[in-house]
């Protein structure tokens, strides 16, 4: 396995509570890795470590290492702003900014100093196509993004991330509020995108993990209980807890 992210004995504390209890996991390059586990098991916290959004929380203590391409991103020398340009994030609730569809996607590129109209149009339309949204919005790029449906908004958020050409895309329960058709479109997009990107998909829907991820991880109460190829985890899990979770006995 070609490792993109190597998490090494990661411990995270909020105040005195240990939220992640010594996580060790290697995440494969250009694959989809699915994170599953009941609410409160620390999946979102782990995501926010990888993109350093945890910096905005108070009273956090972090121990251990998170290596991306062998560089520890928890190091003090790492600039979280430039790190976030290499790591795209899609959140559970689609959050369009209060501007047009086009300007939502152009937001990141403009920050990088890309202001040329033709170039912007090219990269914006490319990323909309990759997010399977282009056909639905190509005639109304000037419309406010908040007028799109929830499913369209979530694909807009995906496109907004893709336009920055990140190396890694983190998706934290991106389909939790979406209808089956929108969900299918996002899954289709992700399966296509993994050729170029390393994808981490958190989902409360084990079937979704089984459908599209190459590797699957099961978290429970801040610990990584099981990790392996999706096939192995779903057909022959090594832990009873995993089996119970997958078969829907708790969750």
């Amino acid at each position, binding site marked *: 396995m070609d490792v993109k992210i190597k998490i090494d004995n990661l411990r995270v504390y909020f105040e005195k509570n240990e939220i992640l209890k010594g996580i060790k996991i290697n995440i494969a390059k250009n694959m989809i890795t699915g994170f599953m586990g009941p609410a409160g098991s620390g999946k979102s916290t782990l995501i926010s470590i990888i993109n350093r959004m945890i910096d905005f929380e108070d009273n956090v203590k972090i121990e251990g290492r998170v290596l991306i391409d062998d560089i520890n991103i928890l190091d003090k020398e790492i600039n979280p702003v430039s790190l976030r340009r290499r790591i795209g994030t899609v*959140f559970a609730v689609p959050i369009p900014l209060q501007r047009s569809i086009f300007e939502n996607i152009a937001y990141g590129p403009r920050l990088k100093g890309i202001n040329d109209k033709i170039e912007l149009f090219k990269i914006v339309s490319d990323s909309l196509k990759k997010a399977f949204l282009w056909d639905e919005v190509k005639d109304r790029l000037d419309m406010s993004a908040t007028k799109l449906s929830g499913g369209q908004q979530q694909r807009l958020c995906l496109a907004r991330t893709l336009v920055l050409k990140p190396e890694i895309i983190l998706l934290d329960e991106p389909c939790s509020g979406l209808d089956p058709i929108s969900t299918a479109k996002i899954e289709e997009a992700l399966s296509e995108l993994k050729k170029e990107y390393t994808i981490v998909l958190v989902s409360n829907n084990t079937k979704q993990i089984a459908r599209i991820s190459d590797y699957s991880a099961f978290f429970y109460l801040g610990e990584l209980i099981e990790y392996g190829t999706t096939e192995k985890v779903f057909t022959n899990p090594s832990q009873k807890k995993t089996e119970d979770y997958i078969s829907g006995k708790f969750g």
Partner: protein
Amino acid sequence: MRINPKKVNKFIQIMLNVQAFFTVGILIVIVALILVKGIGNINLEFLFSFPEDMGRHGGIYPTIIGTIMLVILSILFATPLGVGTAIFLTEYTKETILTKIIRFGVESLAGIPSILYGLFGFIFFVIKLKMGWSILSGVLTIAIMILPTIIRTSEEAIKAVPKNFRIVSYSLGATKWETVIKVVLPSATPGILTGIMLSVGRAVGETAAVIFTMGSSLRLPTSIMDSGRTMAVHFYILAREGISMEKAYATALVLVLSILLINIVAYYTMNKVVSRFS
């Protein structure tokens, strides 16, 4: 005796209606009074000619210019300072003793009667800094006077911007400053504009603090070091010294109509801004 909630509800509803009617009614009476008394004396000549004989005859041109200069300059001065302070208080600091002190200071400043601002402006700008009775002294004084309003309304507006917008901006690789400029401030603009409009109203209507600092010269100001008179001050002097009640009401009418106009324009542009976003 048991209190019947339905009856209480009905009673409160009636009281609220009476109050609303009263408020609107008083506003209408005031505007109508000024309109009736002032309309006969308003024409283009009144607006664009110079006053003669202390304002007993002629127009109010210099006081219009004086008002515009005072209001625009004090807003231009106070807005960046006030919005900047609000950004600092909301985005760049955690709640500490320092922010508590600043907030307490802002609250206190908001409650001080305007004549005290006038006195301060007179002692500090006019005398100490030797600016004399000038538009500059008036502008600085009024700017300080409206600063608390702008800080407080901006702070509320900035706080009301959903945290998620900031999170998205950061996740797309924006710095804090970029997030403030490109996401937070645009979302907070309607609220900030409300504060500015309130301040415009205060600056236009202010008399005491203006007389002390900007003076009441009827000559047309040609630089910010000249003294000048605003419409509100002109009205006050005309009425108080019994120079001409007709001219006083005409001036008041121009004052009221311009405030009305400013509010309508602001409301309209604000709606446009808001509807463009959502």
